[in-house]
């Protein structure tokens, strides 16, 4: 199929950046979206132009590296799908496709479609862990964890840290990302003891890292390729109240 791409090109953080148009021909519906971009890049190189840079690694929806806004939607807007899992059969011959980087104050553009997401790591470093040492740990079965609790923790733990929730949110809030870790650890016997300090430290980091506030637009859940539920935000809020009230 033949397509027209409008791709965000920005040579560096200081460049203003603009959309550039590339007509592409002969794309197979079996190609993944990133393979389509590979093909475009090969053509650009052959014609002496600079290829489009974009973040990617696993290409199977688990590492959270790929990050593109396609036609205004983070990851292209398909249910539970990352950019790298998107296939060209979801597009039609003659389509125009707009490809842009994540847009958020906390994620400055580095080049073309690549942004800096270290703010997400900063939130994790503020408290997204259980303070256990290596070694000297009791048997894994010492504290039984009921299946519903283990399943709840796993639902939250599926977050891949891609940042689509931030890109999708009108306020650029990282609440869904933060809440997933807070909720996972708060319900587990191993994580409970530090729950109060954790929720405070992580929400503080959230506020000082350039993310906006959560005003319940729920766009985060809609953008999330892993189906992380906003119920974890409610859990974070409850945990936060517990922490500040006591």
């Amino acid at each position, binding site marked *: 199929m033949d397509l027209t791409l409008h791709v965000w090109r920005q040579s560096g953080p200081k460049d203003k950046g603009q959309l550039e148009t590339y007509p592409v021909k002969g794309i197979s519906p079996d190609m993944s979206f990133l393979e389509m971009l590979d093909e475009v890049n090969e053509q650009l190189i052959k014609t002496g132009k600079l290829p489009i840079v974009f973040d990617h690694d696993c290409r199977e929806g688990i590492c959270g590296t790929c990050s593109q806004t396609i036609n205004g939607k983070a990851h292209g807007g398909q249910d539970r799908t990352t950019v790298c899992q998107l296939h060209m059969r979801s597009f039609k011959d003659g389509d125009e496709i707009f490809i842009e980087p994540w847009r958020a104050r906390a994620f400055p553009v580095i080049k073309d479609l690549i942004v800096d997401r270290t703010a997400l790591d900063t939130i994790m470093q503020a408290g997204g862990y259980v303070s256990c040492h290596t070694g000297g740990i*009791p048997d894994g079965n010492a504290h039984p964890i009921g299946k519903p609790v283990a399943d709840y923790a796993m639902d939250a733990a599926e977050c891949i840290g891609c940042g689509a929730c931030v890109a999708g949110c009108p306020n650029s809030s990282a609440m869904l990302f933060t809440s997933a870790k807070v909720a996972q650890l708060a319900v587990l016997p191993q994580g409970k003891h530090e729950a109060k300090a954790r929720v405070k430290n992580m929400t503080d980091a959230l506020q000082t890292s350039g993310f906006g506030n959560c005003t319940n637009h729920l766009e985060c859940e809609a953008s999330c390729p892993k189906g992380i539920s906003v119920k974890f935000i409610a859990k974070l809020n409850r945990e936060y109240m517990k922490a500040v009230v006591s």
Partner: protein
Amino acid sequence: MILDGKTPTGPIEKTWDKHRFDMKLVNPSNKRKFKVLVVGTGLAGGAAAASLGELGYNVEAFCYQDSSRRAHSIAAQGGINAAKNYPNDGDSIYRLFYDTIKGGDFRAREADVWRLAQVSNSIIDQCVAQGVPFARDYAGYLDNRSFGGAQVSRTFYARGQTGQQLLLGAYSALSRQVKAGTVKLYERTEMVDLVVVDGVAKGITCRDMITGEIKSYWGDAVILATGGYVNVFYLSTNAMGCSVTAAWKAVQKGAYFANPCYTQIHPTCIPQTGDHQSKLTLMSESLRNDGRCWAPKKKEDCEKAPGDIPEEDRDYYLERKYPSFGNLAPRDIASRAAKEQCDDERGVGPGKRGVYLDYATAIERVGEHTIKERYGNLFEMYEKITDENAYKRPMRIYPAPHYAMGGLWVDYNLMSNVPGLFVLGEANFSVHGANRLGASALMQGLADGYFVIPYTIAGYLATVTPGVVTDEHPAFKESKEQVQAQTDKLLNIKGKKTVSEFHRELGKVMWEDVGMARSEASLKNALQRIPEIRDEFWKNVNVTGSGEELNQQLENAGRVADFLEFAEVFATDALHREESCGGHFRTEHQTDDGEAMRDDENFAYVAAWEFKGVGKAPELHKEPLKFENVKLAVRSYK
């Protein structure tokens, strides 16, 4: 030269405990003075950096991704083994040890494997303590499943995302140390050289992948935990950025590369659809627990819809060839069998490189609902990629390069032959012999990182004075100049072919001539083709852009350049090993019914290769393998 693995002697059950006691310790108040560089933040590197930071060492950790949470360990699906024997089904440290030695086709060191089995249980405890949400039963206890043909249920898992959850556990421990100030992270930083001073590893040189700056870092010890090299085949289940570069730079500086020809080709991957393909996707091996592999008996049926091929015209080839293991035959055997069907022109799907994995019988037996519960996410993933519904139509699968058993040679302390250079995880060669069993790589990565290196590195550091060599030493300047020269060279060729075109060409040669089945003729052909491709690369590659910016073409060019040197050593190793064992199958060495024939008399050794320069024959060093606790036997799965 005969290499010494420095394995402790005495009864195997006591080796690790005794060795731990015999090793020197570093005085706690001195630890902060030692700087340790950890390259890689996957399971092995992440666990090591976090644990060493906790102990008080001054750690710097590096990865090429934008976050230390994204190493390719994240993609592991199936699970992690441990000898807990929770199901009471007869498992033990001895059995895990035995299975691993046998599964590796008797090409690994006994003591290393014993240690792995011994610490496996602590890994599970550690991960639970970190909050890893392993699957649990209704009473709240940890659930186990049988995996990869093991006859006991010893695999722990977190849905289909075990690697992700374990890595996030290690990442959380690492994040805690970053906050505590014991670990400094360098993301988007690619190691492009090892700095060796007077024969001892003392630092690394990296390229900042955002600014292009070439910078050196010094350390009292260097740990490489940089993963596997199967992207030498171009198409594999590894991430796009996985490369041999870090290990290869160490080889160029004197480290030996052990058993490069031992690579694992995983049987259940989604087949290639066309030349545009950039990577292959693995589907968990657990699929073979309920799926039945078959190919049409008649060539003329290959184009038909699978539902139109009657039962009697289907060849359930694994059940036919291996009646006792059937569809659960080990990976190397299952992969080769699939290839045989396709070589016999009975393959299905695009290019006829595929066989069926059929759930009809299982759905009839336990119902679609149960199958959905067991494999729902995998069926979904399959449908996303192929647009086919595997509940209705058998999946198509084909083997793909997946794991590297070979790697940098290390002794029992995980130190390479270059003092001060330690190698962990998939990047070393240690425990899997010629074939790795399912769910044992995650175990090894975490064993190395959490429970081995914290002890063995102390034994080394206790013998060195901290900070005597820093980046003031001229070797660092030299290393930076060398890297700069290579960068300039790549950028100035301005040829006609892209980096990907060269990588694809190399991959094709490796897959066809050095892939699942190798012969003297195919290997000789590869050894002729690889230098030709390499020569053309250095004359005709087109690397766009400049060195002083984010430049993915330049990054890839460096990696492909290293693959082009490494591939030759790989093929040389495969040619020299005149036997078939594990993942290494030489067509000359097989029984009448096509089974691998090992030659213990002549090849029960580790082959460690010393690099002698581009285009020169590498030199072979051998480490003989002794089997005192397990009897050498033919690995039969019939």
